[in-house]
């Protein structure tokens, strides 16, 4: 069958194995002579989960143990973060780090070491993972943590599935009294104001800015800074939205210049109008796009690229200016762009977040947008930044090596656990891993 990531570019003919038990998973590994890669919900954007043989983990979606007193949870890798929240929220617990969608598996969240709107305080997902159970190349199952097989732990968290197949993990939860977030929106008419507001409000638990990158001149980089705090009162309701679906591939012009500019102008106006604090359910706050199934079809059959970089603090302002000028000069538009400040990085060899600013933009896939990404990559590298592997579909091996200085150490750990050549994706081949 034809398989692709969430961006629907690139695609590959793949044999998708779908084991329902750990025994069946081991059998898949033993009986597949070629290299393979684990895949969860297919929410990484590019080619990180693509290979001629993939192991789809979504049927290994069982909870193993939940200590509602201590707030610790153990589950199989195929459980989604939404499913975890549905079980733990009614009992007063929450996931300490949430990405922009609940439709990712636990295994995928660890492999990409995902981050959320609270990275500047709380770090990334793997920092709440106590241990990871991995199926290794030799067919053995090994539990690794910061104390046991620590090299394997720090290579696997953020390691994009290239060390082995994550089968289960134990994590620590965060206590909550209710499932609501108090949100405040602050309008910023230009990039400097957006950056100033992000810094000024970094004490807030959740901070992120939606950015209009399709404006030039004085409005370039205008944005809505969104702050969030866990609410003081409210019930422990779970997500009970009934998602709508995009039933078919939309025409490519839909998210072209006119609609994108109009949408962003409306979004800005709405944000500027709603400056007061208001209470929203966590699902609407963290996963607004989960209310629309298959929203990636909005970009049409050719799919889209998502470009997410992090820029170290020193040259971040200058680099952002260069990036925004390159985007407007290209004539391409980004329907949705997000800017946020990261806190310090962690000890994992390939985890993306590091101190600085992270900018995310979407572009409809075309030869022009691929060329634009190359120009953007050069700006990022020149300023000592890096790109997020979970979003990447196109960066060069040189860009990767420049951004991830521990890549050789990563390869040594893979070699030690005999993962080289056994676990590989289109992405790992492109990046020379």
């Amino acid at each position, binding site marked *: 069958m034809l398989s692709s990531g969430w961006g629907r570019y690139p695609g590959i003919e793949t044999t998708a194995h779908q084991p*329902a*038990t*750990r025994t069946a998973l081991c059998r898949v590994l033993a009986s597949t002579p070629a290299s393979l890669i684990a895949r969860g919900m297919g929410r990484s954007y590019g080619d990180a989960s693509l290979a001629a043989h993939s192991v789809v983990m979504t049927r290994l979606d069982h*909870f*193993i143990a939940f200590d509602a007193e201590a707030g610790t949870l153990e589950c199989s890798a195929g459980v989604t973060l939404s499913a975890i929240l*549905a079980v733990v929220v009614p009992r007063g617990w929450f996931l300490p780090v949430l990405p922009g969608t609940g439709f990712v598996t636990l295994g995928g969240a660890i492999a990409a070491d995902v981050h959320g709107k609270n990275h500047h305080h709380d770090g990334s997902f793997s920092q709440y993972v106590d241990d990871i159970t991995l199926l290794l190349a030799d067919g053995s199952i090994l539990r690794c943590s910061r104390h046991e097989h620590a090299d394997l732990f720090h290579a696997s968290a953020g390691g994009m599935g290239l060390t082995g197949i994550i089968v289960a993990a134990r994590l620590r939860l965060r206590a909550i009294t209710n499932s609501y977030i108090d949100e405040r929106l602050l309008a910023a008419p230009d990039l400097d104001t957006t950056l100033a507001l992000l810094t000024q409000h970094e004490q807030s638990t959740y901070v992120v800015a939606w950015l209009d990158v399709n404006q030039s001149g004085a409005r370039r980089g205008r944005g809505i800074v969104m702050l969030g705090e866990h609410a003081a009162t409210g019930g422990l309701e779970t997500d009970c939205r009934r998602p709508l679906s995009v039933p078919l591939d939309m025409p490519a012009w839909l998210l072209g210049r006119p609609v994108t500019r109009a949408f962003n102008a409306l979004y800005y106006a709405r944000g500027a109008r709603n400056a007061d604090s208001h209470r929203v359910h966590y699902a609407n706050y963290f996963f607004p796009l989960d209310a629309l199934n298959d929203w990636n079809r909005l970009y049409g059959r050719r799919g889209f690229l998502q470009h997410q970089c992090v820029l170290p603090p020193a040259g971040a302002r200058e680099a952002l200016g260069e990036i925004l000028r390159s985007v407007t000069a290209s004539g391409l538009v980004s329907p949705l762009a997000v800017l946020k400040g990261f806190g310090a990085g962690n000890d994992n060899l390939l985890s993306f977040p590091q101190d600085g600013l992270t900018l995310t933009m979407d572009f409809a896939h075309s030869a022009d947008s691929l060329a634009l990404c190359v120009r953007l990559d050069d700006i990022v590298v020149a300023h000592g930044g890096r790109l997020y592997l979970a979003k990447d579909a196109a960066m060069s091996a040189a860009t990767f090596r420049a951004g991830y200085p521990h890549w050789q150490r990563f390869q040594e750990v893979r070699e030690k656990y005999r993962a080289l050549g056994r676990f590989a994706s289109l992405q790992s081949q492109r990046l020379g891993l």
Partner: protein
Amino acid sequence: MLKVLLLGATSAIAEATARRYAAQGARLHLVARDSERLSTMARDLEVRGATSVTTAVCDFASPFDAAALLDSANTALEGLDVALLAHGVLPDQTRCEQDLAALRAAFEVNTLSTTSLLTALANVMQAQGRGCIAVIGSVAGDRGRQSNYVYGASKAALEVFLSGLRNRLCKHGVQVLTIKPGFVDTPMTAAFKKGPLWTTPATIADGIIAAIENKRDVVYLPWFWRAIMMIIRAIPEKIFKRMNL
């Protein structure tokens, strides 16, 4: 608190249904042939909120004692409100055309084991004067097609059996529910190419729970299969026999 017995509990549809009941705090008794999967599933359902989960290993392809099986379920659950019969096999049609053992095996699991269980269950439910027996049939049982009439016939036999049983038990306050799912993306259908008519076990589970709550007799899941099968059944045999279905 609902007391639910799941036969063929590790089937994708039964597991999705069990998760819904677990979230409601039900007591569950699971019967299936694979003990590894049963214990994984039992722990999972406990975390999801089930008040208690017990399991029993039984292979419905071999002879088994239906009465003893129900006895131990009744003891474990301390009563019985809902029994869902979800086990079944999708036999290889072309193989069944040559190999009588394969043909018999399909009927053994899909028809004979199910009707044995239903007979034992009917007596328990009739005696207590309440409860629900829900059985997974198939739209394939609505009309024989050359591509899978062995499977279809094994499910069609159930349909007639269930209609008789419903007629008998309705006087005793017992619901008998025939569930006819269309194309569902499960391990049983892993080899099929999926299209827009396909649905997930979770959607089917929602439909099953609603049908039990609403005391339905026969449901197609999702609903649009009722219309599709009405058309397929309406085609005159003279024409139907020449079609490639």
